[in-house]
């Protein structure tokens, strides 16, 4: 029966197609019962299409606040990374300054 199940889904969605299946369904009562059950479910769920769902009144304000906060954090991270980079360069420069200057090798 698995091989016809995709067709049964079509049959549930499109009652116009049912006439060509009438004889087959009569010979396959299990499949006919499945189609009936699936039609009932579709009829139930279609009810939900007719309901509109209200968005919370402050949805957009909260979203924009969150986006602005994220942008601020990213800017701070950018600034922090730039500052850290500068500090590392300064530290390296200071370390190199502490190293003894290379001595000229005496001529042999």
């Amino acid at each position, binding site marked *: 029966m698995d091989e016809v199940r995709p067709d049964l889904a079509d049959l549930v969605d499109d009652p116009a197609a049912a006439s060509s299946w009438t004889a087959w369904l009569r010979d396959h009562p299990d499949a006919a019962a499945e189609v009936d059950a699936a039609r009932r479910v579709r009829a139930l769920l279609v009810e939900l299409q007719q309901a509109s769902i209200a968005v919370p009144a402050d949805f957009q304000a909260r979203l924009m606040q969150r*986006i602005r906060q994220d942008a601020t954090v990213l800017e701070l991270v950018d600034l922090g990374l730039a500052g850290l980079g500068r500090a590392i360069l300064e530290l390296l420069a200071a370390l190199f300054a502490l190293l003894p200057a290379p001595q000229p090798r005496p001529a042999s």
Partner: protein
Amino acid sequence: MRSTEELVQWCQRTLPEDTRAFEALVAEYSARVYATTYRLMGNHHDADDMAQEVFIKVHQNIKHIDDPSGFHSWLYRITVNTCLDNLTKRRRRSRTVPLMPEPEAGTEEIFADQRTPTPEEAALQHELRRCIERTLARLGVGERAAIVLRDVEDRSYQEIAEILALGLSAVKMRIHRARLAFGQLLATICPDSWRRFAPDEAPAVSGRNAHARKGHGNG
């Protein structure tokens, strides 16, 4: 009123410094995105989190859209995948915890029908929707996504196949099985609602796309 393409191009030109275009885009699409996240997540708290997540991804990635006319389907894919990723992670973390909490008290307030029902109709609708929500919450992630996208969101099989990265035949099979699993669960959880939709009493469900796709424009 700007078209979607114009809004997307405006965002691409002005983000991140200027967010006015993005705010206009959010105003235009938040209802559709929120409806989808609510239907997939099953409660306000998670729907809100996921919708926020979706728009943050849009904010970060809208500059990379090459074809602004494909924005609708791009946004829909991000919305569904954000919810499914979250549900899958949650399920992976704990197999013993239900997929999501039972719909919270007061959930009915989110539904605002186009016409005013009588008190009896309203009570029945309320009860029915609570039953549907509770039943959907107990399905597996894949099954839930499949029937929500097909029967509630009214998406085509082809579109669902692309979003779920499955073949067309596999999608049809999954939807059929999901409907059967949903029916069995509903018959246990809310036998009265299930009986009301017995073949003799069920309202006729006309063919594909019979109901206008609410709030989905061309998406």
